[in-house]
């Protein structure tokens, strides 16, 4: 079935059993992002300890893709240093904007590779990127630069 690429088991698992969900204190920066076309919303908080992202907490309303993406983000980025996180962020954005032509590196993206199929559904790319864009803003507000904000094309 065509949808196999989109609704990977890994994505459905993260959607049904999200990791690290809920907003936590203390935090260094917070950002709330909305997808105006569909109304999906996510709030991301970033806590920083030295050069490390010590926690990402989040709360959101949205489809399986956006919510699973937030869960994967939490898992991939928590506890890593800013430079590593910038690399992960860049790899994920590239994967999402690759129209299905980018081969993801599991060593960098972990469960994030399951989103490779989403890149073939242009209408859903924004869903997957929503928490990552909010994370980038929240990190910047916490004083951590995880990369220039790319123009989201979807």
């Amino acid at each position, binding site marked *: *079935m*065509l*949808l196999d690429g*989109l*609704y990977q088991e890994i994505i*459905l698992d993260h959607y049904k059993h999200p990791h690290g969900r809920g907003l936590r204190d203390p935090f260094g920066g917070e950002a709330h992002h909305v997808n105006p*076309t*569909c*109304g*999906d*919303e996510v709030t991301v908080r970033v806590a920083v300890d030295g050069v490390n992202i010590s926690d990402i907490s989040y709360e959101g*309303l*949205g*489809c*399986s*893709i956006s*919510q699973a993406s937030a869960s994967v983000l939490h898992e991939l980025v928590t506890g890593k240093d800013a430079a590593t996180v910038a690399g992960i962020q860049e790899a994920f954005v590239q994967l999402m904007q690759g129209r299905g032509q980018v081969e993801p590196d599991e060593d960098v993206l972990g469960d994030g590779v399951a989103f490779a199929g989403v890149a073939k*559904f242009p209408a*859903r790319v924004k*869903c997957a990127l929503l928490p990552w864009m909010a994370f980038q803003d929240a990190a910047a507000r916490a004083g951590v630069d995880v990369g220039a904000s790319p123009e989201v094309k979807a």
Partner: protein
Amino acid sequence: MTFDVARIRADFPILDREINGHPLVYLDSANTSQKPRQVLEIMRQHNERHNGNVSRSVHTLGTEATSAYEGARAKIASFVNAATPDEIVFTKNSTEAINLVAYAGGQHLNLKPGDEIVVSEMEHHSNIVPWQLLCERTGATLRWFGVTDDGRLDESNLDDLVNERTKLVSIVHMSNVLGTINDVSRIVARARQVGALVMLDCSQSVPHLPVDVRALGVDFIAFTGHKMLGPTGIGVLWGKYELLAAMPPFLAGGSMIETVTMQGTTYAPPPARFEAGTPPIAEAIGLGAAVDYLTAIGMENVHQHEQDITAYALKALGDMPGVRIFGPSTPDGRGGTLSFAVDGVHPHDVGQILDAQGVEVRVGHHCAKPTCARFGVPATTRASFYLYTTQDEVDALVQGLDQVRKVFG
């Protein structure tokens, strides 16, 4: 004439399409309708044989184009029982028609702080935001009718809401989310008592049921071509002639003038006053053909067919565990637009899985966020029907929803 869905469907080339290996099941007509050959053909003929600019050419092509364009206006006037074709203003869409009234009508009303405009909680954003902006410009206050739990307009505070300070009431005739068809007679009567104007957003009603502007007793209505078998890029403002004649222009430029000097300009009478620039000519002619098509079938018949489909769908979806329908639960006073939630599954995911099975529905907030908020959801899934919709297509929707539950089970 008996209503023959198979024969009607044969007029719509797109309905033969396959989507993702399944026959197309198009349940998104409230978003945009499909177009019959008769509309596509007349637009092609116009562009191939009769193309010229309107209202300014003495040559044969210009005369033919003008005659077809004005002919379309006359057909549309008679379709909604306007007193004269001069009450029909062509716009880009309903949104522009409402904005036109918010600007030109707003200026005519000379609004000031203390004045009130009334809308409702079941409006499309296009019948909220223009009035919010008007209130920001003038200091007037925006008020609104609430919505009851079963998706009806809450008129319990009508006399308080529409009062001596009210200058204009603008209400949706049929909700694009809930499907509710509003009987506006009490609101119109109250507005008359206090001297307020009444506008109806008929984007969802004119395509689906008989609408008679004089029987409704309102002052303005807005509707759009692409939801009623016509093309995109053409909409309609109907207004009472004396009101249109008292209103200043909205957009200014060519075609809307009487005479222009460097010192000043006088304006053409309506409808030309509100049609600055070259209009969407082929689109207006296409909308005229759509009106011919609907008239030949009969709007009573279209409405009855949709009532039957809606009753069938309300039962079929109502019987599904975990499916919650928003809006009136019976076909009485509601049209064939059905919003629902599937427990535990976001509408985007519902829409995606349905699409994989060829079933095209709308998901999201339907440009009516306050309506969604009223029912405590950020978004809904919406199936909407038209004269070409069949019971088999409703069955396909139900099967599709079974699949949704399997994927997310």
